[in-house]
C-alpha cells in the first residue's frame, strides 16, 4: 500500500501540523518517561566520578549479586523455553479436557502479585510450610537459598514464552508438520526441521522478554531471598540494600549495571532483527 493512493480530504498543511504534533507527543513521552530516568541512573552513578563508580562495582557484594542474577536467569530461562514450547504445542495442536484451564493457568503469574508468588513458595517449602518438615528431615533447604530465587523467578516469567508462541502457532496451523510426518519425518526431526524454524522469531522475543524480567524481578525474590549479602541477593535486591545503606553511588552503580544488561538484551534483539530483516519481511503475518 502506498500513502499517495489514499484520497486526501484535509489540506496538506494541517495534516503536517498533526503529524508533527503526534511525533512530538510520542518523542516527548519517551524522553520524559524512558530516556530521562535511564539517563538519571547513569548520571547519579557517575556523580562522584569514574573511580568511585568502578570501586562500587568492584565490591564483592556487587560482583556476587551480578553472578547470582546471571545464574538465576541462566537456569530459569532454558527451563521456561522447554515449558513454553510444550505448553504452546499442546494448546495449539491437541484438544483435551481442561485446555481452557491450562490457558488460564499460564496467565496466572501475570495476574498474581509477585509478592504473593514469593509467599506461596514460603508457605510450601518454608520450615513451617507444607513440605517444610519433610525437607528439613532430609537436610534439604529451598527457601532462602539460590534455589528459591530460581523457583520464584520461573513462576514470574512462566507466561512470557508460551504467550509469544501460542498466537503464532495458532495462526500457522499444523499443515506443514503433517506434511513432514507423511513424508516420513520422525517427531524430533519434524520439530527441529519444520516447527522450530517457523517459530524461531517469536521464540526469540519470548526468550528476550523472559530474560529481561528474570534479571529484573524484585518482589517475588525479595520474599524468598532472606537477604544474605553475597549469597542470596540478586542485583535488584542489592540496589535496594545499597540505597538503604545511604550508599547512593553504589545503589545507582549496580542499577546502571542492571540497566546495561537490559540494554544489551535490547541491542541483541535489534541486531538480530537487522541481520535477518529480509527473512522477517517474508514471514511477516499477512504476507502470504
Amino acid at each position, binding site marked *: 500500500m502506498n500513502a499517495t493512493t489514499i484520497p486526501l480530504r484535509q489540506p496538506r498543511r494541517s495534516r503536517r501540523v498533526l503529524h508533527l504534533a503526534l511525533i512530538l507527543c510520542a518523542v516527548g513521552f519517551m524522553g520524559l518517561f524512558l530516556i530521562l530516568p535511564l539517563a538519571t541512573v547513569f548520571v547519579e552513578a557517575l556523580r562522584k566520578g569514574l573511580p568511585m563508580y568502578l570501586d562500587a562495582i568492584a565490591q564483592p557484594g556487587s560482583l556476587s549479586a551480578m553472578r547470582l542474577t546471571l545464574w538465576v536467569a541462566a537456569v530459569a530461562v532454558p527451563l521456561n523455553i522447554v515449558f513454553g514450547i510444550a505448553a504452546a504445542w499442546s494448546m495449539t495442536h491437541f484438544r483435551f479436557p481442561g485446555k481452557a484451564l491450562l490457558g488460564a493457568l499460564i496467565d496466572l503469574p501475570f495476574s498474581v502479585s509477585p509478592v504473593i508468588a514469593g509467599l506461596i513458595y*514460603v508457605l510450601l517449602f*518454608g*520450615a513451617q*510450610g507444607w513440605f*517444610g518438615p519433610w525437607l528439613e528431615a532430609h537436610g534439604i533447604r529451598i527457601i*532462602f537459598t539460590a534455589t528459591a530465587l530460581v523457583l520464584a523467578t520461573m513462576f514470574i516469567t512462566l507466561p512470557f514464552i508460551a504467550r509469544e508462541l501460542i498466537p503464532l502457532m495458532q495462526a500457522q496451523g499444523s499443515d506443514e508438520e503433517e506434511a513432514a510426518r507423511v513424508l516420513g519425518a520422525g517427531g524430533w526431526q519434524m520439530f527441529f526441521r519444520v516447527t522450530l524454524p517457523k517459530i524461531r522469531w517469536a521464540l526469540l522475543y519470548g526468550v528476550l522478554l523472559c530474560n529481561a524480567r528474570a534479571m529484573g524481578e524484585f518482589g517475588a525474590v525479595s520474599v524468598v531471598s*532472606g*537477604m*544474605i549479602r553475597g549469597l542470596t541477593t540478586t542485583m535488584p535486591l542489592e540496589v535496594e540494600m545499597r540505597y538503604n*545503606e545511604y550508599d547512593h553511588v553504589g545503589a545507582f552503580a549496580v542499577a546502571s549495571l542492571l540497566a546495561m544488561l537490559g540494554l544489551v538484551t535490547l541491542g541483541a534483539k535489534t541486531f538480530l532483527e537487522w541481520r535477518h530483516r529480509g527473512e522477517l519481511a517474508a514471514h511477516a503475518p499477512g504476507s502470504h
Partner: protein
Amino acid sequence: MKVKTLLLMVCLAAAANVVHAANLTLLNVSYDPTRELYADINRAFAAQWKAQHGDNVTVQMSHAGSGKQARAVVDGLPADVVTLALAYDIDAIADRGLLSKDWQQELPDHSSPYTSTIVFLVRKGNPRNIKDWPDLIKPGVQVITPNPKTSGGARWNFLAAWGYALQLPGGNEAKAREFVKALYRHVPVLDAGARAATNTFVQRGMGDVLIAWESEALLAQQEFGKGAFEMVVPSVSILAEPPVAVVDANAARHGNAAVAKAYLEFLYTPQAQAIGAKHFYRPRLAAAAQTSGVHFPAVKTFTIRQWFGDWRQAHAKFFADGAVFDQIGPGH
C-alpha cells in the same frame, strides 16, 4: 623413596594447615539500621577470633525489618545469631523451639549489649518549632514513623508516645489512647522499616518530623551534614533495648555453638562497646561512650518493664491482630 616421603610430608603439612585454619561462617540476622554497626563489629571479631583460635570467621549479614526477620528465621532462614530490635521478635522464634524461652537470661543486661532511645529529627532551623511530644499533634504537622506491624523501631516509637502520655500528671490509659490516636492522624505514610522511614523523611523530603531511633537520627545528621537536620530530644522517652541471642538449634546444627556464643559475648567487650558508641548506640560501659567521642544527650527514660510489663504483654495489648494499634492506627 625420597620423593614419596617428601610428597607425604607436603600432604600432612597441608592437612595440618586445614585443621588449624578452619573457615567458620556465621549468619547474623539483624534489623534494618544496624548495617554499619555490624560491618565494623564483624571485622573486629574476626580479627580477635583469628588471633585467639587461628580460624577465619566470616559473619554473613541479613538485614530487614525486625518483625520480617523473625518471621524469616521461623520460616527457615538459618540464622546462628539474631540481633533484633525488640525482645518480642526473639520470643516469637523461641516459641517455635529454636532457642530456649528464657533466652533473655543468657547474657548480661537482659541480653541487650547496647541501648538506644526514641528522639525526633526535624528539618534545619526546626521550622515547626517541635520541642516535645505534644508538638507532634499540632495542626498541620506531618509525622513520619514506620509501621509497627512490621518495624521494631516503630513499636518503640508507639510505646514511647504512649508512655509519655501515661506518665503525665493525671495521665491514664484513656488519655494515652487519645494522644496516640491523634498522633497517627498526623502520619501520612507508614513505611515497612525504620531505614525506609528515614529515607522518606531525609531523601524524599516528606513530613515535618521523623520519630526515630536516636542512632538513626545521629547517623542521618552525620551522613547529610549537621546543618540539614536537627535532633530534638523530648522531655521523656523510652529506653530501647535491642536484644541479641544465639539461635541454639541452628548454631548446633552448623557446629557453630561456641563461636556464636563468643560472637555475642564479644559485643560486651570494651572494644565492641566503643564500636557501638561510634555508630551511635548507647554502650552499657560508660567509658566506651567517652572514648568514641560521640555526645549522647541526657534524656529521661522509662523502661518497658515500668509501664508495659514485658514485650509479650505489650505485643498482645498493642500490636497483635485486632489490638490497640488496629483500633486507633491511621484511618481511625
